[in-house]
């Protein structure tokens, strides 16, 4: 009886630290495997090294924003200032600011470039843009 009680005292703390781990392990590994697999299916985002992937009920990647950020990197010099027409708290503005750094994203004032995002469902911009702007999906880059 005494040996049984002693063994129980040895096993009890192990149960406390092992059970939560073993209980959650399958779900944790499944979730992380899904995360890795999702990222693999969006090589553009991974290559760009920007955190365009985030979890909000389902895995979403704004592929247009990824392609647009790469376009900005290609065409806008590193020391440029870009004015963005949008709320500074909008996630896409923050993501873009991070992705195109050290290019400076501002929401007002003097700038050499401008970025706009059209409303969802708005008519697509003309194929030949008279201002010489470039666009990807709803995002548009204009040299001022």
């Amino acid at each position, binding site marked *: 009886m005494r040996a049984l009680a002693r063994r129980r005292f040895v096993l009890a703390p*192990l149960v406390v630290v092992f059970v*939560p781990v073993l209980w959650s392990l399958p779900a944790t590994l499944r979730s*992380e495997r899904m995360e*890795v697999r999702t990222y693999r299916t969006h090589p553009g985002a991974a290559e760009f090294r*920007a955190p365009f992937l985030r979890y909000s009920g389902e895995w979403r990647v704004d592929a247009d924003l990824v392609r647009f950020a790469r376009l900005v990197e290609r065409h806008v010099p590193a020391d440029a200032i870009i004015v963005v027409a949008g709320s500074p708290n909008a996630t896409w503005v923050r993501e873009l600011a991070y992705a195109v*750094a050290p290019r400076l994203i*501002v929401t007002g004032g003097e700038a050499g470039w401008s970025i706009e995002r059209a409303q969802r469902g708005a008519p697509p911009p003309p194929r030949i843009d008279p201002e010489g702007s470039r666009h990807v999906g709803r995002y548009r880059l204009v040299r001022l």
Partner: protein
Amino acid sequence: VTLLLRFAAGVVLLYGLGAGILLLTGAWRECAGLVRALLGVFAGAALAAVVLPWFVYLGVAPAVPLVTALAAVSLAAGVVVERRRAVVERRSRPRTFSVGQIVWLSAPFVVLAVRGFAAIGGAYDAFSNWVLKAKLLYFAGNGLLDDRIIELAFATNGSLPVERAYPIGLPSLEAFVMHVTGAPGLRPVDLLAVVMLAGVAAIAVLVLRSHVTPWLLAGGIAFVGWMPAIRDQVVSGNADVPLACFWVSSALLLWRHLATRHPGELALAALFAAAAVATKREGAVYVVALWGLALIAGGGRRRPLLAAGLAVGVTAVPWRVFVAANDLRGHDIEPSAWRIAQHVERLPLILRELWQHLVDAPFFGAVPLAVVAAVLLLRNPPARRAALAYLAMTALLLLILVLVYVNTRVGAAYLLRTSLDRTLVTPSLLAAVLLPLLLAYRFGAGPSGSEADGDGERRRQTASQRNRRIPIAANTAANAARIPSSGSAAEAPRPRTMASWRPSMR
């Protein structure tokens, strides 16, 4: 592969920086193998987070040449001090873990590193603040001569309303890792966070291994490593996991210092505390709470503790001077008595949300589990001080969080919803790291004497016993009452398990 090799080179540089610290503090002799390696890298990261901002303020980029020079100075100083130290007898250090235990406790960190490398997450705060600043520091080149970049790195990206008054210790450290890897993104930052979490595990092994059985210790470390809430935060790019790692390490080392009175442990605790202050503003408040509790619990000889606390405060002077000179103010949170009085009706909401998160599955209920274990220990006189210390620390951490949410300038409901997942990482990490110790006290699951047998009778003596020349076998009960550490007191009835104080630490 190139990124991994370059990251490994950065880790080696941080190890050089930290190895000097370990030699200077005498911790080098306390550990070996993987624990020493991880502790060295972690101490190097802490030192870099403290020191690199000073150079950034002076206009020197946190790049490879600077860290190499700092590592060389640190190593040279460490070697000189170590050579002057008295030679102590070489002991055969028994193996702490079996192969199975090593596999079990290291698995979560390996899987987490793979996740951090393969799936680049990143939370809103990471790419709008922490990693953004690191990226800007990285792009600033060899000297921060571009005023625009300086303004951005210290403040925010243009007119985006990001907290401007945050310290830049973590962005500076991350910028160094970006310099080494050549990758200004989240991937090296995620890997660095994994290394930091492994560093806390190394310190837990160092501090707890003589109090807890190997399987319980391995299980406790795996408990930390597999906790979903901590894993998600490690790969988020947020500053909360580094803050938690630095602060919990400081708490563990300070706790050990109260038992051994070894100045090296106090110095290491102060280094990690300074790194916590350099990481986030909450870090400063947490460190004040920790030092206050240590001063109350530590009994006599408060002067070394006060001196260490003062040194931690001095490390934050450049940051505070910069904030004062530029009149930077908090955007989301700014403490004021008026705000507390105005927002006091938010308390029920805040407490309810806190409780729901603490018992939530992603946190494994670590805090409630540890609190229950500690409360049960209150009836056990030898372990009462350990239990009280843990309960007081947790209560202070949660009180600080409540005050933060009461003082918010934005909606409390919004801030709670978007930030509790990360702000609760520090109390949860503390609870998870200390849970094996509390359980060991509660269920008597200390090691069966193998470590004590390996190091001989002298290691079973406590510092106070040797100083006062009290025979250990005849005085375990008196010793339990005298030693400030509750850990030593708790084990007093079982002298064979009391093997944490080594001759080299004196």
